[in-house]
């Protein structure tokens, strides 16, 4: 109640910060993983070191994603419950884009659990689930772009672009080892994904009114504005409602 009435809590900032860092760590994980499948090795980065970094960074990414999820659930700003954090399409707040994050989280959990149980699973099952983990990265990227409060920030767009380029470069290196047929398909898919991402950012988050189109509940914002007293001081709102946006947030959410 207090947090809701006194502005964004530290949890909200932690959510956003850990989300950004988790995406960078996931990018490194994918890049090292793809480099591993390409049998990349150099004097400065031997295979053992690269493999160890892939494992450690992925665990670190899981830790950051866990903090991201926990702070999101605890923070009353968007009122996202535990159910919404684990089951896709159950959140009233930007359902589709939030669900992408949920799916990425579930995929990551599956990879971690199967990796922990690797000795009890067949290599085929573990490998299949591990490959699914690679889908976590583009899903997480689009989750960040679609849901992220800060998607319009230029430095964050640059960071996203660097992440895409890093993974694309790793995939391109990997595809040089593939046969001509799969190589062409892989390069085309990578190019299509990059193009789709750029187009999505241009016609989506960068356009005014994205907040409403993304599925931000319109009622809470206006209702919260109505709850403000005539003298300008807002009445405390209970958990489960969204506070009235400040000017900057209105602009970023396209509410203005």
């Amino acid at each position: 109640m207090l947090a809701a009435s006194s502005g964004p809590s530290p949890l909200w900032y932690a959510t956003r910060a850990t989300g950004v860092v988790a995406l960078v760590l996931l990018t490194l994980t994918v890049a090292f993983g793809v480099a591993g499948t390409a049998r990349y090795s150099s004097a400065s980065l031997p295979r053992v070191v690269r493999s160890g970094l892939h494992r450690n960074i992925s665990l670190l990414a899981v830790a950051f994603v866990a903090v991201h999820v926990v702070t999101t659930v605890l923070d009353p700003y968007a009122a996202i419950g535990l159910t919404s954090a684990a089951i896709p399409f159950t959140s009233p707040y930007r359902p589709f884009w939030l669900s992408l994050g949920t799916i990425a989280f579930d995929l990551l959990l599956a990879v971690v659990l199967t990796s922990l149980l690797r000795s009890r699973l067949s290599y085929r099952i573990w490998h299949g689930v591990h490959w699914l983990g690679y889908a976590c990265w583009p899903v997480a990227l689009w989750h960040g772009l679609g849901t992220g409060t800060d998607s319009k920030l230029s430095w964050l767009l640059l960071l996203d672009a660097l992440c895409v380029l890093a993974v694309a470069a790793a995939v391109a290196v990997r595809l040089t080892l593939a046969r001509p047929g799969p190589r062409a398909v892989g390069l085309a898919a990578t190019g299509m994904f990059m193009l789709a991402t750029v187009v999505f950012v241009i016609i989506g988050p960068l356009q005014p009114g994205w907040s409403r189109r993304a599925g931000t509940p319109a009622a809470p914002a206006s209702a919260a504005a109505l709850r403000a007293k005539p003298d300008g001081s807002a009445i405390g709102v209970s958990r489960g409602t969204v506070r009235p946006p400040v000017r900057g947030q209105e602009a970023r959410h396209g509410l203005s």
Partner: protein
Amino acid sequence: MREHLHSASLRRDERLARIRRLSLWITGGAAAASLGLGTAFAHALPGHSVATGASGTTRSASGSSAGAAPGASGTGRLATGGVKSSGHQHKHGLAKPKQQPVSTPAPPVVSSGGS
């Protein structure tokens, strides 16, 4: 043979140490980046020191403003349009109230009970 094993063991230890060192650097960097980003978001949130209520007027962010930084809650910082205010500013920046507190014009009339 023994020297070969020894050198292989040394090489393995060196590589494991490198993994540990790099992992620690990345972990530290990620933690620092997370803290830095969180702080930056808290301070750079446009208008976080400007609270807009229904009247849309600039007002104190203390305990009531939407979008105010969490550090601002309870500190009573004065909001000036788009200008960030530091945490200690309110100690010197609080303006006197324009209006004196309204005093009670007359003591309440107490009537004896009708019974």
